[in-house]
C-alpha cells in the first residue's frame, strides 16, 4: 500500500492509524514563523466512527488503508449474517449485525446500499439516503386530517419506527430520509 506524507493528507484520504483504518476529514498546517511545522489533522476512525484530532510533525507519513466503497445489493438476513452482492460480478459478502449497526433497520431485500470494504472485508454499511418502505403497523388516522402537526409512530417493514403524519395508513409506502430517520412523503406504487 502507498505511503502518504502529511502534505498529501486531504479530506477523504484513507490511512492506517493505530492499526485502524481511518479517513482524513481536515488537515491544517500549523507553523510558528520561527518554529517547528505541524499538521493538525481531524480523522474519523472508520471502525468506530469516532472523530479524533491528532497532530503530526510535518513530513511524517502514514500508510494508506485499502478501503473502498462499493455499491451492492442487499440480499437477505439468514438470522446470523446479512448477505450482500455486487450486481456486476455477483460476488457476495456477508457480515454480522455488529458491522451493519443502525443501517440494518433501513435494509430491505433487493435494495441497494453502500458497503465499505477494508482489505476486502465489510467494515461498514450505509443505506441509500432515501428508502421507500411499507408501513406494517400504525394507529388508524383521522380522515381528512392533512395537517403536519402532531403525527404518530409507525412501524415499517424492516422494523424501523418513524413518526408519520396522522393521515398515513397501514400498508402505504412511504419515503424516509435515513440520515435523519424522518418521514419525507408518501410514495405511489
Amino acid at each position, binding site marked *: 500500500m502507498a505511503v502518504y506524507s502529511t502534505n498529501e493528507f486531504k479530506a477523504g484520504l484513507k490511512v492506517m492509524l493505530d492499526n485502524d483504518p481511518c479517513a482524513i476529514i481536515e488537515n491544517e498546517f*500549523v*507553523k510558528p514563523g520561527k518554529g517547528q511545522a505541524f499538521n493538525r489533522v481531524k480523522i474519523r476512525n472508520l471502525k468506530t466512527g469516532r472523530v479524533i484530532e491528532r497532530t503530526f510533525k510535518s513530513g511524517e507519513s502514514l500508510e494508506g488503508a485499502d478501503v473502498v466503497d462499493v455499491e451492492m445489493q442487499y440480499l437477505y438476513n439468514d438470522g446470523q449474517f446479512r448477505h450482500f452482492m455486487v450486481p456486476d460480478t455477483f460476488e457476495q459478502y456477508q457480515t454480522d449485525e455488529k458491522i451493519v449497526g443502525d443501517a440494518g433497520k433501513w435494509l430491505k431485500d433487493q435494495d441497494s446500499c453502500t458497503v465499505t470494504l477494508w482489505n476486502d472485508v465489510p467494515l461498514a454499511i450505509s443505506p441509500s439516503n432515501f428508502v421507500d418502505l411499507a408501513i406494517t403497523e400504525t394507529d388508524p388516522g383521522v380522515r381528512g386530517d392533512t395537517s403536519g402537526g402532531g403525527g404518530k409512530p409507525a412501524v415499517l417493514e424492516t422494523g424501523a419506527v418513524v413518526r408519520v403524519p396522522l393521515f398515513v395508513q397501514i400498508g402505504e409506502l412511504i419515503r424516509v430520509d435515513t440520515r435523519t430517520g424522518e418521514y419525507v412523503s408518501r410514495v405511489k406504487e
Partner: protein
Amino acid sequence: MLAEIRKFFADRSVLEVETPLLGHCIGTDPQLDFFTADYWLPPRRQTLFLQTSPEFAMKRLLAAGSGSIYQIGKAFRNGESGRFHNPEFTMLEWYRVGFTLPQLMDEIAELIEGLFSGKPLKETRRVSYQDVFVSFTGLDPLIFSYQDYCAFARECELSEAVGICGQDHALWLDFIFSHKVQPHLGENALCMVYGYPACQSSLAKINEDNPQIVERVELFINGIELGNGYYELTDAEEQSRRFDKELAIRHLHKQPSAVKDQRLIAALQSGLPECSGVAVGLDRLLMLLSDSASIDNVLSFSIRSA
C-alpha cells in the same frame, strides 16, 4: 493598506529600501526551508537562494549607516502551504535605530491600530511569554520539566506530543504554544508576547537582567501569528556561533545545507547600531482586515494556481 503603511513611515522619516530577493547566502534557521535558483553566467553555474526574509541585507544597510529603514517585499519559504501559509508571501520589515524593544512595540501598536481604524480592535495587550504560558497551561516555559510537560499533554489528549517532542525543550514549547496558547491570543485585539525563552532566541539579544529570556516579541490577532520582532543581536561573534549551531542542526537532520552569510558577520563586526526590528506578514494582515478564512482569498493566485 500599502498606501497607509507607506504614509505611516513617511510621516516618521523612515526610509523605504529594496534589497535583493536572490542572494549568495541564506538564513541558517533549521525551521526555514529555502528555494534555490540556478544562476548561469557561462561558463560558471552558481546556486543562488531566494531570500526567506530581507533581514540580513537590511542589517547590512543599517551597519553601513542607513538609519531607520523599512521594506515591503516578497519572501520565500519552501514547503509552507496551508490556510495561513503560501510559500511566496509579502512581508513588511522595519528597523528603528536607537529603539529598544518596548519602544518598537509602541510603534507596532500604533501602526496596527491605525490600519484597523475602519473596524477598531479592542485594547492592545502586552504579556510576557512566561505569564501567558503559565496562565493557559500551568507550566513554566523557562524550566523544562519533562514529566510535567508529558502529563499536561496527556491531560489535553495530545499524548502524541511525547513521541514528537522527546527531550527537545524548544520543540515542546512550539507544540504546546501553538496548540494551547496561541489560539487564545488577541481576541479581536492585538496581543504582543515578549520575553521569549532563550532556547527560542533566533536573532534576538539576550535580556540583560535575565539570561533565560531574550528580547523577542511576537504579534497575534485572533490567534493568528502576524509578526516577529527583536532587539537585534549586534554581537558578531555570538551571531557567528548561533549560525554554526544552526548549521550543525541542519547537518544532523540531513537538511539542505545553508550558506553562512559572512557579509552579515562582517557588517556586524564593523558595527551594527543598537536597533530593534520587526517583520509583519501583510497577507495575513489583509486576511484579518477582510475577514478572509484562507490566505488564498487575499492572493491574486496562490501557489496551486500560480
